[in-house]
């Protein structure tokens, strides 16, 4: 209701403005012609009077032209047709002149006005087309609801000169409701105004709504059509984004499904190997057919123990892998001494290490590192266990650590095993990647990817290098955490124990 009455008001306002303009032009023309009336006959005067009519029609369109035509008709009659300064007409031929003049003036203003209006309409259409083109080009590059909503809000605001535009996208399939406002700093200020609402709608589903606040002029039917088109474009973009997201999700699921089944098959294989050893050894021992001498007996028992430890590491690795994957590794970092971590790992692996020479060079005066000592112990366990697997018996497995700079230690675990092809040096840290070297060695290829996960969660870096005679994995650990290096309170040396009697 208020809309239609206000649009009528606007129409009248426009007519009034045009009347004033036309009046001004016609009066000016009348003044000029009046000055020339001594030298020009009334007839050519009528022709000259067509000029302001044409001008008004050309400048301000049909309405202004017709108003000017009527004014010129009155002016001609009043100022130039005898008797002058009255609206009376004595001669019948003057009546004809006046009527023809009115007809011609209206005709001209119609022709000129229409041309002008259609030119303006064409220009407006072109502008619309350009805006739409820019808008859809912009949308084509966006694949996220938020970015799309922002683009819609900004473009609608610029096109319709609204003070504020709000785009609401309804919650859907776990997505929360999204509200985007343009300009952003007017959040909350929109609520009081009565907005123009345009739905963002698919045939079967409502996706959201565009709301325009404080649009300066009322929307013409053409504006409304344009707004509708903006909304269609927005819906298309949102739908496209959703399709892409769904496709990505599907691909990720497929990939993780593939990984899971590959994991399951290699895990079951991997678990069976130590289980077979354990089963074989324990049934042998309990069998009464053979009288085992004590050496053979011990060997079987050692095999059982070793394979049990191996199984334990494997199960732990699987668990850690799933933690790393889900981002739930949560290292419990505190200041730790690397030499102590290494000592503990070597003590626990003692039985498995007896077939190799272990060379440890982890100086006791290295600065403390800020790590979860259990997880870093696991990194060493995996790296050493890998070395034992790939390097020949009685070869050297080295564990070295040096101070790299003011805030890092560089740790190196090296062995005399076969080199890894250069192309694989990075790949070996990927899940399930195994460098096939002969058929002796097995492994699910989880160990190194767990090391990578752990080291990176500690802010370090891990990489592999081939050595002239062997292979090494290096990683870094931090000795400064958030700008803090540990401070140990000083103590004066004097002892509380009495020096020798």
């Amino acid at each position, binding site marked *: 209701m208020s809309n239609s009455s206000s649009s009528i008001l606007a129409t009248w306002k426009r007519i009034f403005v045009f009347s004033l303009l036309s009046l001004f032009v016609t009066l000016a023309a009348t003044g000029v012609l009046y000055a020339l009336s001594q030298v020009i006959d009334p007839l050519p005067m009528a022709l000259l009077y067509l000029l302001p009519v044409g001008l008004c029609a050309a400048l301000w369109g049909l309405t202004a032209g017709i108003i000017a035509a009527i004014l010129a008709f009155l002016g001609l009659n009043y100022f130039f047709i005898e008797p002058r300064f009255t609206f009376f007409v004595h001669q019948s031929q003057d009546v004809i002149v006046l009527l023809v003049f009115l007809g011609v003036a209206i005709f001209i203003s119609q022709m000129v006005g229409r041309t002008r209006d259609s030119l303006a309409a064409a220009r407006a259409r072109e502008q619309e087309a350009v805006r739409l083109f820019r808008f859809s080009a912009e949308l084509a590059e966006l694949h996220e609801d938020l970015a799309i909503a922002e683009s819609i809000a900004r473009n609608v605001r610029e096109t319709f000169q609204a003070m504020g535009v709000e785009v609401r996208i309804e919650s859907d399939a776990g997505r929360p409701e999204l509200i985007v406002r343009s300009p952003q700093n007017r959040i909350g200020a929109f609520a009081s105004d009565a907005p123009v609402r345009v739905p963002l709608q698919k045939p079967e589903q409502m996706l959201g709504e565009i709301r325009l606040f404080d649009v300066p002029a009322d929307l013409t039917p053409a504006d409304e059509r344009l707004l509708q088109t903006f909304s269609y474009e927005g819906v298309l973009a949102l739908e496209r984004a959703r399709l892409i997201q769904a496709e990505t999700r599907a691909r990720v699921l497929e990939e993780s499904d593939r990984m899971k089944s590959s994991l399951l098959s290699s895990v079951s294989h991997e678990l069976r190997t130590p289980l077979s050893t354990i089963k074989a050894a324990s049934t042998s021992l309990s069998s009464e057919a053979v009288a085992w001498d004590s050496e053979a007996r011990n060997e079987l028992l050692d095999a059982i123990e070793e394979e049990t430890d191996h199984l334990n590491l494997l199960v732990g690795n699987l668990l850690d892998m799933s933690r790393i994957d889900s981002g739930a590794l949560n290292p419990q970092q*505190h200041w730790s001494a690397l030499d102590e971590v290494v*000592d503990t790992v070597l*003590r626990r692996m003692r039985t498995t290490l007896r077939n190799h020479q272990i060379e440890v060079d982890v100086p*006791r005066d290295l600065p403390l590192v800020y790590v979860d000592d*259990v997880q870093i112990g696991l990194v060493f366990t995996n790296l050493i266990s890998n070395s034992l697997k790939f390097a020949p018996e009685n070869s050297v497995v080295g564990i070295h650590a040096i101070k790299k700079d003011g805030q890092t230690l560089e740790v190196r675990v090296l062995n005399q095993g076969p080199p890894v092809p250069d192309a694989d040096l990075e790949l070996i840290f990927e899940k399930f990647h195994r460098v096939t070297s002969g058929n002796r060695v097995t492994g699910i290829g989880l160990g190194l990817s767990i090391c990578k996960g752990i080291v990176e969660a500690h802010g370090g870096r891990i990489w592999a290098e081939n050595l002239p005679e062997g292979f090494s994995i290096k990683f870094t650990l931090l000795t400064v955490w958030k700008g803090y290096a540990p401070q140990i309170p000083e103590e004066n040396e004097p002892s509380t*124990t009495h020096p*020798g009697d």
Partner: protein
Amino acid sequence: MPPRFRRRMNPQPHILVIDDEPQILRALRTILTARQFRVSTAARGEDGLAMAAAQPPDLIILDLSLPDIDGIEVCKRLREWTQVPIVVLSVRESERDKVNALDHGADDYLTKPFGIDELLARVRVALRHAARAQGAARPVIQAGELEIDLADHRVKQHGKDVRLTATEYRLLAYLASHAGRVLTYGAILSYVWGPGESDHIEYLRVYIRQLRKKLEADPDEPRYIINEPGVGYRFIAEE
């Protein structure tokens, strides 16, 4: 030594195992019985608490993950009325639970899967500490070549005095007087440096290093002071 106590230690200490895995219960019962322990078992926390009250055992082996109540809760409820030694069983991934259990009254822990030597060592140490808690504290602790005289504040190695700073001595004395038992980082720090310092593991690391340098024949293979990653330290007095 009170005669009542002698009777309880001899000849067959009574061990209560609380664990919901029948295989573990079966294995522990067999192994411990063979080692001359009297064994009773419970598969649920509530049953375990009831059994401990009905027939007080000399030691409890407690799995931290039980079907009905949290193992730590069992620890707390036991500690409301008894000082019976508790050894908790847990898995590698839950250092926090272990520390939590130790802070709530457990005496020691074992990580599953464990070797039987380890289990027996824990049981022995826990029983011995319980016995000592009722008798007088030993004034002199002997560990290999090391002799720590708590009354006299004196540490000797191979019969010679070892010079230690006040803090080093305090740390060593605290560890050694709980020989064989794990002590959490927090417990050691608040005893040696004061309750306000219980987060400063870095102090502990540095002082342990210094102690090892002074005491251990081969610091690469420490014999006396053993680290339990994520939990604490243990002083080993046995050969």
